């Protein structure tokens, strides 16, 4: 999908910063228009969860501006929670709650809560109604959170590692559900995950954070088109090439590393240049280098 200048942004983040004793999130900027899915990737401790916590007003940023669903202050954003569905990468509900208690408790708070839809989602996701929350598998706990997040018909979904505990079939169903969710052009999803394959399949935009710093925000294809994977024999690894390669890996047969497309001019034809996947991008950047 292409973004036009007139589309409504459901999230706008500008210069978000937060300092802890051992970690600092530096100036994060991004926006998420209605009708799109945005993926947030980065290694563990990169700042993804901190960013989500700031969006949910669980932490107070040291700097920056956040607008969500058009609300710019914390109180205004909280008042609009009915339009926001959230799944977090934690065990969220009390131990002994079952499906019934989740519905009973959330129904009180969300005017648009839809019992019939919640029941339908629980059936479709095979969530056992008699099992206590603490006895559910991690994947089922995530499914229950997702069902609860969707059951009050939000406009915006914020999901933190929703696919991690799911089996391939459940993951595929979730991704399809998310695509259906945004299909009318009015809804959006912000999705943080380590499973880059999922993002390549459904994400329109990508926010890449590493070490608390934003490395990239934009269309997924734009990011992937910025780099190539270069492979060759050890005798072709010149000092100049070693200097510019990102995440250089050497082995007995040769070497491989990422290279910015604008630095490929003049490379010998004997070197192999391949397009990259998001997973390769994360691995090579994780090994060392810069974006």
């Amino acid at each position: 999908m292409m973004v036009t200048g007139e589309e409504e942004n459901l999230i706008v983040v500008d210069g978000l910063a937060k300092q802890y004793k051992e970690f600092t999130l530096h100036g994060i900027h991004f926006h998420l228009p209605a009708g799109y899915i945005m993926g947030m990737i980065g290694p563990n401790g990169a700042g993804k969860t901190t960013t989500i916590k700031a969006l949910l007003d669980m932490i107070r940023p040291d700097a920056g501006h956040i607008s969500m669903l058009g609300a710019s202050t914390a109180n205004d954003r909280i008042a609009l929670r009915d339009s926001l569905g959230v799944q977090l990468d934690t065990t969220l509900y009390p131990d002994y709650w079952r499906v019934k208690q989740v519905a009973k408790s959330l129904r009180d708070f969300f005017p648009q809560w839809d019992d019939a839809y919640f029941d339908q989602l629980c059936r479709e996701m095979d969530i056992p109604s008699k099992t206590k929350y603490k006895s559910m598998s991690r994947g089922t706990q995530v499914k229950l959170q997702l069902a609860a997040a969707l059951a009050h018909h939000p406009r915006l979904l914020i999901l933190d590692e929703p696919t991690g505990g799911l089996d391939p079939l459940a993951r595929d169903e979730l991704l399809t559900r998310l695509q259906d969710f945004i299909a009318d052009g009015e809804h959006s999803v912000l999705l943080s995950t380590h499973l880059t394959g999922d993002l390549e399949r459904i994400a329109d935009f990508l926010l890449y954070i590493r070490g608390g710093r934003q490395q990239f925000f934009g269309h997924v294809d734009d990011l992937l088109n910025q780099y190539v994977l270069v492979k060759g024999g050890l005798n072709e690894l010149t000092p100049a090439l070693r200097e510019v390669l990102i995440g250089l890996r050497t082995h007995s047969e040769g070497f491989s590393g990422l290279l910015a497309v604008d630095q490929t001019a003049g490379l010998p034809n004997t070197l192999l240049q391949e397009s990259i996947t998001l997973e390769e991008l994360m691995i090579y950047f994780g090994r060392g280098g810069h974006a």
Partner: protein
Amino acid sequence: MHNTLRMMRLDTRSVNIRNNVLLIYLVTNLITVALAFSPLAEGAFLIGFGGLIGGSGACLITPFVASAQRGLDAFYAMLPVRRRDIVNGHYLFAAVLSLFMLMNTWLIVILIHWLRPTLFGADLPILLSFAFVGPFMLLMMSSVQYPILMRISYEKAPYLIFLPIVAAGLVSGYIGGSSTDLLGRHGFFSPRGYPLLGLGLVGGAGIFLASLLLARRLYARRDL
């Protein structure tokens, strides 16, 4: 106000507290009534009232224990309620539980008096009046505990949280033990007792309110 009530209901649901409280009160009530017929000592039933204070004190912090165990602060953050409503809900929970405790104590005292009129005799008024002491001490205990819990959470200060429970037990025991000497046979319902009762209620309400405002301020600033 609606959100405060909703949060209080969520507190009771979050720890299955209704069943726990009912069970604790039922068992303690039965023990208290049984002790009223104890051949060992006439004042043995007072042990049951001590148990009620302890049980209620434990109930008061259970929402926070559950919160620490299951990350309920994150759950609250997803709801369309302001942080002040979350704090208000906790305090309302404490107030309602204390009121419940007062009514229950009165009920037990009247029940014992009905079953065995000779046990209390003329001491019935002082027993009814000192039913205030337990709930009052619980509310004072909450007034100390809750701001601490709001700022640093239960998991980071479990022992600090239990100190007010111990203090509440000691003060309640002292007041209960010396009540007749202090105020005479009619307890707070006497010319000497009314000013003390009034002072206690006004002072207690002031402390409770100050604690609520402090807790709201502390929770508003906390990173969850």
